[in-house]
């Protein structure tokens, strides 16, 4: 009898304690929600909702000055492949991705290896980093005049060759994309080099010393010791620059604003041109969807490679 009473009592107490615990947990969860709410709401409303709306819009006929009522099925997507601009923009985007990844990496690696052991390393590092602080719009405005007919590049070429030179680098089909890529490299090589130097500094000296003592050439040391240990940094840089290669807009828009075929300069430019210069909002959002799918697919592959590399090093 007494036993049941105590057990009843204790079970009631236990229940009470559990309820209080639950109340405390619930209160903490409520407080936690308050803490994360602004971030979740803003990101949800201004970033994630638009992505969904973008996909929906790409199946409509929405244009400037027309209603949104008409659904268009896949006609926007069909049109992508029917017009020549899209495939040209695609080809140039591919060139951009390759150029934006390979060139900064190769040049920055060369610079990083050269700069590693010299005086004024810090000063030179800051100097090379400076263009990254400038806006692409500002960089584009300067380089617009570097490539102008009466511009810096032509005047250097004239001075070296002795012939007068007034080539319009940004007006010619064959030179416009490479020219803007060179500007991109100018802006990116510094930050790439700083990141590589950080990666190089983290490589332990001992295995390199050991290999040297064993008679390995500098080339062998680089290939078999430095490069594998630097690979994670190289991948980080690659991931950053792949995204930039796909989506660079400001530089192209500012520098090649006068180029007659500018809509074909890249998918990012094509999307902007069709949406906001031509008022084809639904069509532009279809271009954006294609661009988004490609960026996400390539990023996913790179992230997978990155996780494999990091696992193999550990």
């Amino acid at each position, binding site marked *: 009898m007494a036993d049941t009473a105590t057990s009843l009592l204790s079970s009631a107490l236990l229940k009470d304690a559990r309820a209080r615990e639950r109340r405390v*947990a619930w209160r*903490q*969860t409520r*407080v*936690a*929600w308050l*803490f*994360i709410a*602004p*971030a*979740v709401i*803003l*990101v949800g409303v*201004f*970033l*994630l909702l*638009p*992505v969904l*709306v*973008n996909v929906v819009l790409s199946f409509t006929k929405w244009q400037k000055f027309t209603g949104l009522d008409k659904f268009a099925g896949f006609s926007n997507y069909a049109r992508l492949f029917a017009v020549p601009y899209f495939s040209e923009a695609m080809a140039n985007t591919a060139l951009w991705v390759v150029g934006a990844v390979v060139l900064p990496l190769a040049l920055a690696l060369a*610079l990083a290896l*050269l*700069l590693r*052991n*010299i005086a004024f390393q810090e000063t*030179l590092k*800051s100097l090379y980093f400076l263009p990254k*602080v*400038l*806006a*692409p*719009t500002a960089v584009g405005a300067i380089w*617009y*005049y570097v490539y*102008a007919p*009466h511009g*810096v590049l032509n*005047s*250097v070429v004239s001075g070296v060759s002795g012939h007068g030179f007034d080539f319009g680098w940004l007006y010619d089909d064959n030179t416009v994309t490479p020219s803007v890529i060179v500007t991109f490299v100018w802006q990116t090589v510094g930050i790439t080099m*700083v*990141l590589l130097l*950080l990666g190089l500094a983290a490589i332990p000296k001992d295995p390199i*010393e050991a290999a*040297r003592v064993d008679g390995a050439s500098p080339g062998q040391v680089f290939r078999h010791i430095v490069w594998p240990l630097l690979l994670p940094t190289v991948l980080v840089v690659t991931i950053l620059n792949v995204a930039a290669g796909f*989506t660079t*807009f*400001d530089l192209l*828009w*500012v520098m090649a*604003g006068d180029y007659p075929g500018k809509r074909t300069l890249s998918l990012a430019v094509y*999307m*902007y041109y069709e949406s*906001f210069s031509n008022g084809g*909002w639904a069509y532009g*959002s279809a271009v*954006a*969807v294609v*661009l988004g799918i490609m*960026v996400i697919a390539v*990023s996913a592959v790179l992230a997978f490679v990155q996780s494999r590399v990091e696992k193999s090093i550990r």
Partner: protein
Amino acid sequence: MAVDLNDPQFVKSLIDKERRANRPAGRWVLLPIALATIAYLTPFYYLFVTIFKTTPEYARKGVLELPDSPAPFLDNVAQAWTIAHLGQAGLNSFTYGLCGAGLAVAFAAAAAYGMTRLNLLGANGWFMFIFTGTLFPFQMYLVPLLFGYQRLGIINTWLGMVLLYTAICIPFPLLVLRNSFSAITREIDEAARIEGASEWRVFVSMILPNAKGPLVALFLLQFTFIWNDLLFSSVLANGLEVRSVMVALQSLQGTYSTLGPNVVITATLISSVPTVLLFILLRKYFMAGLQLGTK
């Protein structure tokens, strides 16, 4: 092979090898660096000779020639300032940068606190939700934002721009701050909680002061991003009273512009002053912010 340390030739070859491995970079390294640096700096040199030229002088001379006198600089500044309305544009961009980056870092810090310190159900899920915001290219936001902003009537307003910039600057700081907050020992805030401090008190007076470095670095990175943005401001706020400094700069430039390159280049310099100054003054934080990005 027997090693004979008394053999002077062998010892000498060892010393030579050691010396070769440790020698400082020779002159042959300096030449390519010098050449690369000169080529690299040419656009800056061009900028600094051009801002001191008048338009006729620019047309007459070689682009890399020195100016006659530094006097035209002030006139170039005055022209760029009034024609592009750089005062208004600078004020707009400064507001966007200050409010956008400040609010974004504050909200990201609060969210990071909620995810690392409080018993939040599904904390990882919420983190992934916010982090999804970094996956998509900006081009996917543009048309829907234009659509939504027109409906809501916040197109061409400060409010609309600040809201967008705040949202877009939240995910990356959240990623970084979640790591920094996890690294702060839990003993400090447990002690404060036992003393009866509210979560808000713990957050503001225990956690935030311990993450001052990352907070400053993140604010600087996001401010620079907002100041430098052309894409969003050109679509969502191109009215003269609300447009950003980069939209103003872009309006000066191109074939249809009748301005001389000397004025456009001067405007470029003016619009870059704030971020370059921040970089020079707070280089330490910038470089730290950079390293945050790779971790």
